[in-house]
């Protein structure tokens, strides 16, 4: 049986704007992925624990609160600590180019800003999986 791509979509932080995350989740389902939708108010610890249990290939975070410079590095650290840094950490939100560059240097994958198309996100995940 062909391996199904499994993607965790979570929304860290305290704001309740999960529309973007839901739209991306639907697009990924329509692309044939299995999306584990964890919902709102996820801490980095919860995200990494869920990623372990669900054995996802990709962790995608939606961060609109401006806390990306804290959350992404923390998730990366926990991924390393738990031996799951072979998974892709990606995401989207309102993140300045400067921060995107910094985060990618740390090991975060592509980050999608406002106006990005869901097709691009799907394509990116597919390409990443093909290369793996």
């Amino acid at each position: 049986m062909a391996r199904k791509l499994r993607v965790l979509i979570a929304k860290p932080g305290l704001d309740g704007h999960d529309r973007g995350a839901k739209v991306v989740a639907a697009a990924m389902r329509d692309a044939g992925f299995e999306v584990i939708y964890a919902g709102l108010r996820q801490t980095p610890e919860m995200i990494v624990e869920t990623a372990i249990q669900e054995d996802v290939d990709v962790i995608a975070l939606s961060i609109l609160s401006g806390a990306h410079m804290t959350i992404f590095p923390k998730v990366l650290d926990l991924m390393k600590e738990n031996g799951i840094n072979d998974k892709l950490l990606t995401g989207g939100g309102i993140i300045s180019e400067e921060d995107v560059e910094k985060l990618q240097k740390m090991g975060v994958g592509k980050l999608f800003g406002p106006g990005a198309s869901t097709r691009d996100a799907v394509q990116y995940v597919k390409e990443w999986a093909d290369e793996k």
Partner: protein
Amino acid sequence: MSKIIDELTKGILEGNRNAIARAMTTIENEEDGYVRLLSNIYERIGRAYRIGITGPPGSGKSTLTNHLTKILRKEGFKVGIIAVDPTSPFTGGAILGDRIRMHDLALDKGVYIRSMATRGSSGGLARQATELADVLDAAGYDYVIYETVGVGQVELDIAEAADTTIVLLVPESGDIIQSLKSGLMEIADIFVLNKSDRPGAERMQKDLEYALHLRESDHDWHPKVYQTVANQGKGTEELWTEMKNHRSYLDSENHLVNKRDRRLKNRIETVIRQRIEFHFWDDKRKKILKNYLESEKEKLSPYLLAEKMLEKLLKTFK
């Protein structure tokens, strides 16, 4: 390969969460070595008690699972949860969202939650749900809860996979005739009328009890109806007591042994069926079928064609 599989096995038996996760993926995708893996752990399973929770969409399955798990944790048990959601038949994708209602279990090291998509299976469970429960069983989880897809009709797989099956209804599930029709009535060991703070609960309870009373049964276990308001945890303690009653009933007079023997028999049959089908449809036979479908000439009846294709195979069975 077998070395990796044996290492995974060791990890499972030690309760290592990364190993459990990896093993589940191997089994779910039927990757190389999955049969060896299942055989490896086979001797270590049978300790976990398995609970099935089913019911129509929106009846509160995830919320009830969340509360029951908290009760089980308070009693010191480790709990595994297999949460199943449907695969889209059109795209093959799925959104698995049961975790949303289980937030407060996310960081409990005594709880392992795995979401599964049905991937074409239609009985309310995913095809490998029992096998994933086996992994949790071997890893030392005391209880495994299956949470099914909420299709509300014949979720018969769950009765097969679980030791105790709970069927959830809400006051609005109304029309009792419907529940009589859908195999739900026969598979329940316990009925839960959830969201019972809503109007119509008492009526629904009476209707259900009446329907149960009408039912012929050759068992000496008679399913009762319990009212809960799962999001407030109301009624869940009483439900837990009834679950324990059902477990002691099964433990008496070999009911549990019989049930598990049936499960074993079914699994052997399923494995054989799948294997035969898999090998039967080789390229040659796939081509025969394709040509048949594309042929413009007058066609054989499907039954005759099937007979013809099976001819050689059937001979070996005689």
